[in-house]
């Protein structure tokens, strides 16, 4: 079984558009939407949810006011500044470590489970899909990503699929690392802006750091062809292949409004170039 993650560093470069297009071209893939705190793939694929699984993130501290003597020992011990001056828990600051409960001389603090989101196993017109919804203002998005990836692997086994296409989040931190750890390849979608170039360099460093082979796709390459050339030169120097350059086109937005992948929506230049990218990527994965 192979796993491919679509990432970008910078947000809004077209990860989900391209991942959804690849899903509609792949014939035997499981889909995993790992951008769990701003998931959008379902808006195009309209999955029918088969199974919903409760996701409990980290625990959260809770103070029993009837036992608390406001001694402040917990506040001093908390490394996350998650206990206020009047000895209450800031639930958005609490990381669930349990130190406050351990040091409390009155045993007034307990660590309680909290539901931090839902994970879903679904069916789409292109095959099985694992996705999730992180609860509002909840932490532990990296853990939820790990759950979605685990669910996707189980779906792949159950339905005998040999590829998982993962739509990753932007950035370089916790949920990105969880989305790319151990995958066979990452497809980095970038754009020819100074921000796109800067963020590409960092995300390629992250892929290198975890020893994951990377290929690059330049979206909206014609917005600034000079910068596109800079990206191509840069990738060449790093020994990374640019597997495709996509033009600026309103087809992806129009397709999104129709709840279609761009491949379903049109067979114009944009779609044809995505098909070439897919052929190229599929060859590299096998």
């Amino acid at each position, binding site marked *: 079984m192979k796993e491919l993650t679509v990432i970008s560093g910078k*947000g809004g470069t077209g990860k989900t558009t391209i991942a959804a297009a690849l899903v509609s071209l792949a014939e035997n893939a499981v889909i995993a939407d790992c951008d769990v705190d701003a998931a959008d793939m379902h808006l195009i694929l309209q999955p029918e949810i088969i199974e919903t699984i409760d996701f409990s993130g980290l625990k959260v501290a809770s103070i029993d006011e009837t036992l608390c003597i406001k001694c402040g020992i917990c506040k001093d011990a908390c490394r996350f500044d998650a206990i206020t001056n009047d000895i209450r828990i800031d639930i958005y600051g609490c990381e669930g470590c349990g130190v406050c409960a351990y040091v409390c001389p009155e045993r007034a603090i307990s660590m309680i489970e909290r539901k931090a989101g839902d994970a879903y196993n679904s069916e789409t017109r292109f095959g099985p899909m694992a996705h999730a919804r992180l609860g509002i203002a909840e932490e532990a998005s990296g853990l939820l990503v790990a759950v979605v990836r685990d669910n996707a692997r189980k779906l792949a086994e159950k339905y005998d699929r040999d590829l998982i296409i993962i739509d990753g989040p932007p950035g370089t931190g916790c949920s990105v690392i969880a989305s790319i750890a151990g995958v066979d390849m990452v497809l980095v979608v970038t754009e020819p802006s100074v921000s796109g170039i800067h963020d590409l360099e960092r995300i390629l460093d992250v892929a290198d750091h975890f020893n994951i082979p990377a290929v690059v796709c330049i979206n909206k390459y014609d917005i600034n062809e000079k910068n596109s050339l800079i990206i191509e030169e840069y990738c060449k120097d790093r020994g990374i292949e640019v597997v495709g350059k996509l033009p600026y086109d309103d087809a992806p937005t129009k397709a999104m409004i129709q709840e279609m992948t761009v491949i379903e929506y049109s067979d114009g230049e944009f779609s044809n170039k995505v098909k070439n990218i897919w052929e190229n990527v599929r060859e590299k994965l096998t």
Partner: protein
Amino acid sequence: MKIAIASGKGGTGKTTVAVNFVLSIENVQLFDCDVEEPNCHLFLGFNLEKVEDINILTPVVDKTKCDFCGKCSEFCQFNAIAVLPEDVLVFPALCHGCGGCAMVCPKDAIVYENRSIGIIEKSKGGNIEFYRGVLNIGEAMASPVIKALKKHVDESKTAIFDAPPGTACPVISSVQGADYCILVTESTPFGFHDLLLALDVLRKLEIPFGIIINRCDIGDDRVEKYCDTEGIPVLMKIPHDRKIARLYSEGIPFVNRMPEWKVKFVQLLDKIQAQI
């Protein structure tokens, strides 16, 4: 006053708004809280100097004292320390630095050492006070860097926080403590869906907000209709202008070439002050 700029969906124009906003108003500080992929400096051209390393405490086990009882590993909620029959393994990238393992160790075998996970930098010279955080490559936890960054807020100035995309912990760390949050969106299905998620976060954190619609002539009118129904102020609309896109791609703030927009950003600050 502290104003955060967030979005839910990435690439909607947070940094564009943040940079052009600070270039249009007086007595201002800019904080690039997108420590995973900071971009503001690319538009400002300032020289940067390091202010501090952001360290978190990571356990080091003295194996001559350790009797491999396993209490530390049992306590750790983050699976950052594993005890084998005759060895202890620490996984620094998973450690949150809570200090619990040393507290529970009956042999006093655990001490802490500082591990750098990122840095804070500030601008040298220039008329805008600019700070940014940078998370080291391969590090998972952005929040400690963001929290340290925001300690440089000068309460006598207007502070602008350019937040990362999404709605998870780095976003919460960025917007927490702000008096107001501008949400930059585009009126597409993805933009709108992620805007709703971001709105839920701000409502839960009880931070007042308004909306800027970027590339307002692509997509459809779903964002405006929603704001209208919910009584959410639309603070500004920025058209999908090839010139603005081109300037952005080259790292040039558009108010520098289209000065008529400076007035609009001054009015933006007035609108926010009137709302809170």
